[in-house]
């Protein structure tokens, strides 16, 4: 039995009358690459924010790395990494300074910070830019850097919210290589996206439609289920009844 790092049961989030996340239940095993799909406005980001400890659930339960999202958010945060849609590094700090800061607040020792950041900078090929401000970097590098910073402290799980927005296909491919590497080293990947081709890269995916989870399976199975060769088609068949659009 694989260790479950995320367990979700009837998780719900309401904003007044509006039900953003409607009783979703699923779990994620250690080391999985779990894709969290859905159209804009389907509730993906809201659900993810609850799992990250950024938002309280209205009802239902979930545990992340063994800690409850209802009252153990701080413990959750010690064990996860996060990369938001905006990449959220400090634009007016250099690459090294960003790494130093985030590594430090996650408890990595100064010695380790130095070692690991040297390696990281080398791996990304950013030696010449190491002391330049992040704000001046091209989008693709920012994105890879943000991901590296998110897993710098070797968290159990890393949450990625639409991490590949606006970058070219080559960079996206390279990015997913990085994700594979992380997964191979034991980090569980929880990624939201609306790029259907990326869905193929995941071990399992779920599809949210209007706040509800309408599908939960491996890409292969889903394609079989909807009798199609492309995830695009499968998704379209699933989601075309959706009423909400736009985040």
């Amino acid at each position, binding site marked *: 039995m694989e260790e479950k790092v995320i367990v979700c049961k009837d998780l719900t989030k309401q904003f007044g009358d509006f039900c953003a996340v409607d009783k979703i239940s699923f779990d994620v095993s250690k080391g999985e690459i779990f894709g969290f799909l859905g159209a804009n406005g389907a509730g993906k980001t809201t659900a993810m924010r609850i799992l*990250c*400890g*950024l*938002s*309280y659930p209205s009802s239902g339960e979930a545990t992340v790395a063994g800690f409850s999202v209802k009252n153990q*958010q*701080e413990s959750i*945060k*010690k064990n*996860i990494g*996060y990369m*938001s*849609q*905006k990449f*959220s*590094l*400090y*634009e*007016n*700090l250099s690459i090294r*300074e960003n790494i*130093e*800061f*985030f590594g*430090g*607040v*996650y*408890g990595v020792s100064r010695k380790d910070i130095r070692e690991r950041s040297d390696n990281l900078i080398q791996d990304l090929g950013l030696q010449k830019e190491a002391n330049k*401000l992040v704000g001046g970097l091209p989008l693709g590098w920012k994105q890879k850097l943000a991901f590296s910073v998110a897993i710098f402290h070797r968290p159990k799980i890393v949450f990625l919210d639409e991490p590949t927005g606006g970058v070219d296909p080559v960079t996206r491919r390279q990015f997913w290589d990085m994700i594979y590497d992380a997964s191979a080293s034991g980090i569980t990947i929880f990624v939201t996206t609306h790029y259907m081709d990326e869905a193929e890269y995941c071990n399992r995916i779920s599809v949210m439609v209007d706040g509800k989870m309408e599908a939960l399976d491996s890409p292969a199975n889903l394609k079989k289920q909807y009798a199609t060769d492309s995830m695009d088609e499968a998704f379209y068949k699933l989601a075309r009844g959706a009423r909400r659009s736009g985040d």
Partner: protein
Amino acid sequence: MRNLGFLLQKEFRQIFRDKTILAMMLALPIIQLMILPWAMNLDIKNINLSIVDNDHSSYSQQLITRIGSSGYFRIISADRSYKEALVHIENGSSDLIMELPAGFERNLVREGKQNIGISIDAINGSKASIGGAYLASVISDFNADLAINQMEAPDYKTTPMGFMEINFSNWYNPLAEYKYFFVPGVLVLLLTMIGGFMTALNIVREKEVGTIEQINVTPIKKWEFILGKLIPFWIIGMIVFTIGLLVIRAVYGISSVGSLPLLYIVAGTYMIALLGFGLLVSTFCDSQVQAMFVAFFFILIFILMSGLFTAVQSMPHWARIISVLTPVSHFIKIMRMIMLKGSGFPDILIELGYIFSFALVLNGWAIWNYRKTS
């Protein structure tokens, strides 16, 4: 604690990297401190006077000469009628009109009483009304010195019955120089703006850009984050305060009569209160524009009701309560008390108590409001 170290490292790096913000926080206040107080002068002088002399007698001549030589007034016109004189008031070239009726001298001698009309441009605020009071007192002196009065009541000047001699003295400011009054206050205002605006903007900026979410998802504790924001700006505030005191000494020649360490303790507490205010504003606002306008609303109220520009004591009761509820008025009071009068700790205890309570309440509320999870 460790996180606090990393936070401070990041904050200082960011602050020093942004030269414009640094300039706003250091250079701008100091420049304003050096320049603006020179403009703050409430002396009433060069009161512009238009005279309508319908009498053209020797008395009216004497009176006019006397007024002219009093030093307070500038007789800018001699008009033939009140209507003509009014034009000067309308176009702002004159603050007062004095009108001497026809037959002034003759009627004064015959009937023992005469009226001189003084018209004051009430829109011109204190200058005109105080000017009117000066004019009345020059006229009254002229009245007393009139030969007819001297002759008729020879006793008046030598042994007047019940003449009360008033002896005025002005303590702590023998030359009645305005700078003693205003300069410490201006420094307080500048500090207020730094403390109030900067933290509010800074934190809301992180909200807008998204880096606050990144912070909220880390194990950084709430108090660590807040301290990480307060400490750098507190230090900058104290630096500005120190430079400010040096500037005050160098440019205005004012140095503190009272204890400097005491002054610093108060300034330090005050900064904490103001930073707490900025922090509190930031918890309520989502955008920099909002934060700015909200902070502006309160800070302008703080400034205008602080007692620096207008006396708090003269305000209506409810307004005085508002003034008491602003931290600025208390600090300005303390600044004056310590710097100019040399007041000691027991004297400022109450005011310091106010500031301390503000620091506690504002920061406490802000901390309570700030949510890592929403």
